[in-house]
């Protein structure tokens, strides 16, 4: 498919020949190999693959938390060095601070970035309301359900209006119903803003449901095996997952999984 990314100037994030090799006791371990990918501004990109395929490593490299050992990454044309500007991250665990209220947890993003808290208070309250957490601002994380906590951690990531949102299996620990809810809310948030989202998951239906484009990765070493556009109209209702078109996309991913020996068909 479209393995060689187009070279239009309309590229927000460009990954060229990126590789990552870790030293280990049994010699070097290749975690990522020859990753090429262009992400358009405002695109919702899902990266799906079996565990151990290096998708989280790729995300850590994009977040500036780890360095690639070969190739290059540019953001808005500038080579990546350290965490990019205007970026928000969401992990599988919500990592909210127990001693802070939900509002103060959301404001942590501004504090870390060195912005005055008060300037973001109003926006934090709006975001919390937007994600159905109105009335919970003064509660502590342990008083909330897992789904509500993850909503709060998304609000935290969105507080300073990032251009890029990196999400590492954010709904992986939630039950199926909550996961569906959050998929819909995330899709709605994305449609209303113009953020670039890179969303890592190992759920096939989640990947297709959310994405403009799906990147399929395989393991040992982590590399891209397929990239395809998801051409389903938006906004997408949850029932889109029962449509034939959706089934074709899901089948395409499942086929790769089967080839990799992860799924038996």
């Amino acid at each position, binding site marked *: 498919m479209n393995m060689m990314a187009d070279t239009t100037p309309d590229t927000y994030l460009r990954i060229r020949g990126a590789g990552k090799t870790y030293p280990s006791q049994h010699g070097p371990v290749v975690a990522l190999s020859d990753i090429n990918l262009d992400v358009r501004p405002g695109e919702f990109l899902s990266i799906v693959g079996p565990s151990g395929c290096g998708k989280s490593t790729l995300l850590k490299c994009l977040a500036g938390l780890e360095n690639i050992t070969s190739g290059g990454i540019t953001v808005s044309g500038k080579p990546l060095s350290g965490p990019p500007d205007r970026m928000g991250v969401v992990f599988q665990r919500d990592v909210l601070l127990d001693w802070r209220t939900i509002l103060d947890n959301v404001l942590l993003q501004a504090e870390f*970035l060195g912005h005055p808290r008060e300037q973001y208070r109003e926006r934090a309250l709006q975001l919390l309301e937007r994600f159905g957490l109105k009335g919970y601002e003064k509660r502590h994380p*342990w008083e909330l359900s897992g789904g509500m906590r993850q909503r709060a951690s998304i609000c935290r990531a969105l507080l300073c209006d990032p251009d890029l949102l990196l999400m590492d299996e954010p709904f992986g620990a939630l039950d199926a119903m909550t996961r569906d809810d959050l998929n819909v809310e995330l899709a709605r948030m994305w449609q209303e803003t113009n953020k670039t989202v890179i969303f890592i998951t190992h759920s096939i239906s989640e990947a297709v449901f959310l994405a403009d484009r799906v990147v399929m990765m395989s393991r040992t070493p982590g590399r891209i095996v397929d990239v395809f556009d998801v051409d389903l109209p938006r906004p997408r209702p949850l029932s889109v997952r029962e449509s034939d078109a959706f089934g074709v996309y899901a089948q395409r991913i499942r086929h790769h999984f089967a080839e990799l020996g992860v799924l038996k068909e």
Partner: protein
Amino acid sequence: MKNSLIAKIMRDNRSLDIVLVLLGTILLWELAVRLFNPPAIILPAPSAIWAAFMQSPWVFIRNMLYTLMTTGLAFAISVVLGVVMAVGIVQSKFLERTVYTLLIAINSVPKVALAPLFVIWLGTGMSSQLAVAVMLAIFPIVINTVLGLRSVDPDMLNLAKATRASKFDIIYKIRVPNALPSLFSGMKVGISFALVGAIVGEFVAGGRGLGFLVLTAQGQFDTTRVFVSLVLLGVMGTILFYAVDVMERIALPWHSSQRQPNA
């Protein structure tokens, strides 16, 4: 906030259990002594212990306050010094490999056995007693605080780094609050150890204090007065422990140990 705290302590029916069990034990003890009449040098009756206290209450209270002062001072020194050491150990690889290694090594020595050494070094009196008490109390505080400072969720640190948090923010907004529950559990052990240390200090370097009273009463085979001191020590130990416990409840209302089932 305050009201719910008091209400919570009141609702904690374990404290009621403790009072009932203690009262029952005293009652049985009194009955047994009256029934079997053992020599007072073996086991005095609770009523006799109370009478001995009332005979010279101020002697006991004065010595109790002295032991309390030694314990409190030693505990305060241990907390301040212990936290400073813990932060240093976590921040510096060098201190971790030297000071922390040494602490872990010394921790396995029965430290009470070192008490006589302090008398040689510091002479008799309060400085020796303080030294013994600090030596006992500081270990659980340092070790617990180090563990607490280290046990931060790696994804929390990733989030902080990805958001360009300063080193200062990572320490004061993440690591230190994260370590407070461990610090408090170290302090709860530490306060009991400080009391043990103060008494051992009084045994070997005495002159004053409840530990010294126990020793002199034992020398005169005055078992009743030994018991008066023991009871006062028990009361003191309990109050000190609960003082730290209340401090914890006020400082860490967010911690899991404080949560009510239907919060």
